[in-house]
């Protein structure tokens, strides 16, 4: 293992740690670890302490995972390195989720002890303008550009098919060396196109989710909150379009690499730059916008003992939304940025599982046949 893989590991773990560590701070002010609280209690000393504690725990977990991985990389055989890396990333995510669930329980108890739920108004708000008139996402027409990139990639593969070498690189390790090759065939040459199709569909799905999730509007400042929501949705819809475009272009570069127009090293750096850009943009966007624009400053807020949508009981462990009454497929997340699904809607669950299934099936198929 060399310096390059260390940099890669550091990047992966640092970005993962940063992504999770900022979560308690970018959420709505009327939610703490997935529990609805009166906005006026957001800066309550006890809540503040729980947030601080979670930050330190997140950082400690991140640093530990990073050190273990870097150390372990020097002891395991190269073939197992990627597997170890994946396991460590998953373990880190799992540790973060556990911390969240524990903090969620703690806040729930605190809410009960301090009787925040008692005689607080429980208000839910809808802004019909966003359901009938106003736009909350960039135009879906932009996604035609995906089609262009796709067609161009297919064209490159077909046009230069004859000059493509007999062995096609399929997998790269963290050092930027190829570890697996496939025999040249229409399928292996078109591998980047299949990946583009999947990624393109995935990003369009994310765009669609951002567009279709009902806005959660703050009861105390409905007008401002609507605007914040709109800013949030618009920015993330642009992000999902651009993020997908970057990924598609990366796979077009890989096609160029397969043909032999681009060197292995340059593809490696281009893809890394693309991924770093997407991660950095996501973090920057989370910090500046917050969940549903909670960090976008629009007007002043008055403080009242109001609980926005007392729906704690529908959130299992603050993470999974299950509400049979609610016809919504997608709902705004309680913790973190973005949207999640209503697990009480079978169709939504099917969509969600099929996205995961396609990813797994595709990677299994490619490792069997290519």
């Amino acid at each position, binding site marked *: 293992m060399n310096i390059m893989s260390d940099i890669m590991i550091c990047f992966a773990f640092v970005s993962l740690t940063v992504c999770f560590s900022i979560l308690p701070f970018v959420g709505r002010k009327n939610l703490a670890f997935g529990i609805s609280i009166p906005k006026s209690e957001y800066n309550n000393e006890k809540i503040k302490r729980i947030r601080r504690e979670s930050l330190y725990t997140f950082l400690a977990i991140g640093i530990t995972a990073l050190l273990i991985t870097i150390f372990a990389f020097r002891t395991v055989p190269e073939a197992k390195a990627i597997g170890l890396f994946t396991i460590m990333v998953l373990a880190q995510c799992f540790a973060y989720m556990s911390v969240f669930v524990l903090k969620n329980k703690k806040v729930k108890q605190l809410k009960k002890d301090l009787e925040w739920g008692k005689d607080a108004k429980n208000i839910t708000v809808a*802004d019909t303008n966003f359901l009938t008139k106003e736009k909350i996402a960039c135009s879906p027409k932009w996604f035609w550009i995906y089609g262009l990139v796709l067609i161009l990639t297919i064209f490159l593969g077909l046009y230069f098919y004859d000059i493509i070498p007999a062995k096609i690189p399929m997998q790269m390790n963290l050092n930027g060396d190829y570890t697996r090759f496939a025999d040249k065939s229409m399928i292996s040459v078109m591998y980047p196109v299949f990946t583009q199709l999947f990624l393109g569909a995935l990003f369009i799905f994310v765009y669609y989710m951002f567009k279709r999730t009902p806005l959660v509007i703050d009861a105390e400042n409905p007008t401002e909150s609507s605007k914040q929501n709109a800013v949030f949705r618009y920015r993330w819809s642009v992000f999902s379009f651009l993020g997908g475009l970057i990924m598609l272009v990366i796979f077009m570069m890989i096609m160029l690499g397969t043909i032999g127009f681009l060197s292995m090293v340059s593809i490696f750096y281009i893809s890394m730059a693309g991924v770093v850009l997407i991660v950095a943009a996501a973090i920057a966007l989370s910090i500046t916008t917050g969940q549903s624009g909670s960090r976008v400053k629009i007007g002043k807020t008055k403080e009242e003992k109001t609980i926005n949508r007392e729906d704690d009981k529908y959130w299992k462990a603050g993470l999974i939304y299950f509400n049979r009454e*609610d016809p919504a497929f997608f709902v705004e997340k309680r913790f973190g940025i973005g949207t999640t699904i209503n697990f009480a809607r079978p169709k939504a669950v099917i969509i969600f599982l099929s996205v995961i299934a396609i990813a797994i099936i595709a990677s299994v198929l490619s490792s069997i046949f290519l």
Partner: protein
Amino acid sequence: MIIKIDMSKDTAIYKQIYDEIVKGILVRDVETNESLPSVRNMAASLSVNMHTVSKAYAKLKHEGFISLQRNNRATINDKESYAYSEEYVMAISDELEKIVIEAKCRGLKEKDLTEIIIKNYKKY
């Protein structure tokens, strides 16, 4: 139009939706011929049952405020369609009677009660 529902109130949710939309029509947050969100979208936005919204829309239709198109689109009717009828006057007279009875029973003065009505009438 912003629809605000207080789940902790005793008033039924469908009635609150109804009241909010009527208010929206009065203050012209929604204009004649404008569409209301679909039942599904409205219910999802408020995270309430679709039947609740259907019930509110059905009542709005019954009272002449909206029409439900064949594609289930709800649009606001013109003023004439929901202008008050004798039936309506009788109905609110009954409602007001109940309110007056309780208010009088609790010792509220006639002047104070009428003042409340006048104040609210002038508010919009």
